[in-house]
């Protein structure tokens, strides 16, 4: 705006040009309002309906109540499913952070022939073998190994999918750790695993936290893998249960769905904005794929 007004070289604008500029400005504002409206309109239901005593599908100003959340608490599957999502998320975090940091550390510190090629190959693979392209072999693998319908199976499959990116990010963090720390630890006779636990992990903690949050967000919203691999409603995570809420029952219970949607969304929204503020999410194609 300031740059537009400062134009010393230009003669006084002709009235036609001023009018045109004004019109362009108005069109610009209208366009921004339309775009804002486009993104806000579906979201409006998410923030109003949970607090409406008789939620309908139409967006309307709520008459503020928290009753819908007690409906949520009473539903046998709702809270269990959020617990399941949490379990899948934490399980995947545990697997990828431990195995990923071990691998990233080794890749960062030992000169392995073809290391960069290996890393790029893995990243390439993780974007090629997606859940949608690999659903049949994954399904069969789980059936054969008896991991079908278990959380373990889903955790392992999800871990395999996110590990290459996790290793890639963690290796960056490990590379930035000064080697002199480890050298002195080694002079005092520390073993590699001790160096890792007592020197590297504490320093790399921000990287580990970042990767953990990133993995949780990946898992939290994932629909396809748990949808295929988990059949009983007791073990399904929120992403899948929510879908059954509005398809299997002819008359959708909007009190339940609205409260559920909000409770299910809040963790990732909070995490996203927290991490975004701390690290900025311009990382490897962002937080969601």
């Amino acid at each position, binding site marked *: *705006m300031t*740059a537009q007004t400062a134009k010393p*070289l*230009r003669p006084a604008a002709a009235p036609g040009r001023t009018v045109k500029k004004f019109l362009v400005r108005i069109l610009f504002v209208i366009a*921004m309002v339309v*775009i804002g409206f*486009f*993104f806000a309109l*579906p*979201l409006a*239901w998410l923030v109003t*309906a949970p607090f409406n005593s008789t939620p*309908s*599908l*139409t967006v309307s100003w709520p008459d503020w109540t928290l009753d819908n959340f007690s409906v949520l608490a009473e539903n046998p599957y709702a809270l269990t499913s959020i617990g399941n999502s949490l379990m899948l998320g934490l399980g995947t975090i545990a697997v990828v952070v431990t*195995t990923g940091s*071990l*691998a990233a550390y*080794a890749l960062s*510190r*030992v*000169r*392995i022939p073809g290391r960069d090629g290996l890393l790029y190959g893995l990243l*390439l*693979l*993780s*974007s*090629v*073998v*997606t859940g*949608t*392209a*690999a*659903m*049949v072999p*994954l*399904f*069969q*693998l789980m059936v054969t190994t008896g991991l079908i319908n278990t959380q373990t199976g889903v955790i*392992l*499959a999800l871990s*395999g999918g996110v*590990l290459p990116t996790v290793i890639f990010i963690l290796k960056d963090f490990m*590379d930035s750790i000064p080697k002199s720390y480890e050298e002195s630890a*080694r002079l005092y006779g520390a073993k590699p695993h001790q160096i890792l636990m007592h020197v*590297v992990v504490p320093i790399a903690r921000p990287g580990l936290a970042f990767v953990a949050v990133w993995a949780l*967000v990946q898992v939290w*919203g994932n*629909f*396809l893998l748990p949808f295929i691999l988990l059949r009983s409603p007791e073990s399904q995570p929120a*992403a899948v249960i*929510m*879908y059954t809420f509005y398809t299997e029952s002819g008359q959708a219970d909007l009190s339940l769905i609205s409260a559920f949607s909000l409770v*299910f*969304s809040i963790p*990732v*929204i909070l995490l996203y904005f927290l991490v975004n503020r701390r690290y900025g999410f311009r990382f490897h194609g*962002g*937080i*969601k794929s």
Partner: protein
Amino acid sequence: MSTASARASGRRTRRRPEDVAGLGKAGAGTFMTPALALIGLFLIFPALWTIYLGMTDYRLTGLAAADPSFVGVENYTQILADPEFWNSLRLTLIFVLVSGVLGQTLLGFSVAWSLRRLPRWAKGIVETLVLAAWVVPTSVGSFLWLALLDRRDGTLNWLLDTPGMAWLIEYPMASIIIFNIWVGTAFSMLLFSSALGAVPPSQMESARMAGSSTWQQLRDVVIPNIRGHILTNTLLITLWTFNTFTPYLLTAGGPNGASEILPVYIYRTAIPGGQLGVGAAISLLMLLINLVIALVYMRIGRGRKA
């Protein structure tokens, strides 16, 4: 990465200058084994196994479930003769082109471009809204659209005064395309915001001094500067849109296959349809397309770094 290590090894003459922890190659191998095993089992194995599965008559139930037999390219001839497959491929191309390449990229760029001219508060609002659509779990996002487009009580019918309009049945492809634009624009917005931030202000300033219009500035200054970002964005968006299963939550591929993009087609063939072998064969085609897109992306990414 490689240049840094090359420099380090040039300076020091020890045999393994990087290995300060005394891991050694064996130790490194041990450290890497768990991760590589997981990747091997859940990424590499499925990719290779698809090749084999796609050549069997493997089924979910019945005789061929217990003892699948090798049928060679039969699945592929069956798929290629199936009009449903071609329909699905056509829909996928439209979906990727319109919602990903055109919709998300153009809208994402326009928003990123406009944000620079907005006051801080307005910028905050627009950015938050676009990001929220992206961050909300897909199951929630798709229900929000089901509510918006509902035939009886949907907000859209109420706003447009078109009671009883069943958008998802009348316009299934348009619905999932617009939905996908809504979900995914945030990524392009983020990417182009940072790209635009890196365009040298001096070039913009001199273009403006020379009296060039916004369009001319875009064409002569901005686009040449962010060409790499445009390519990255297009390839990633293509890959992601091509693989997304989320439209299933809105239309389940219906009505009558009218919005049955490839991921949904594979799912319906393999799991409810029980034809795992045929599903695997389509998956392999999909893997190959993914591979081509990813290779192009990697190639450009590496070229840019060098």
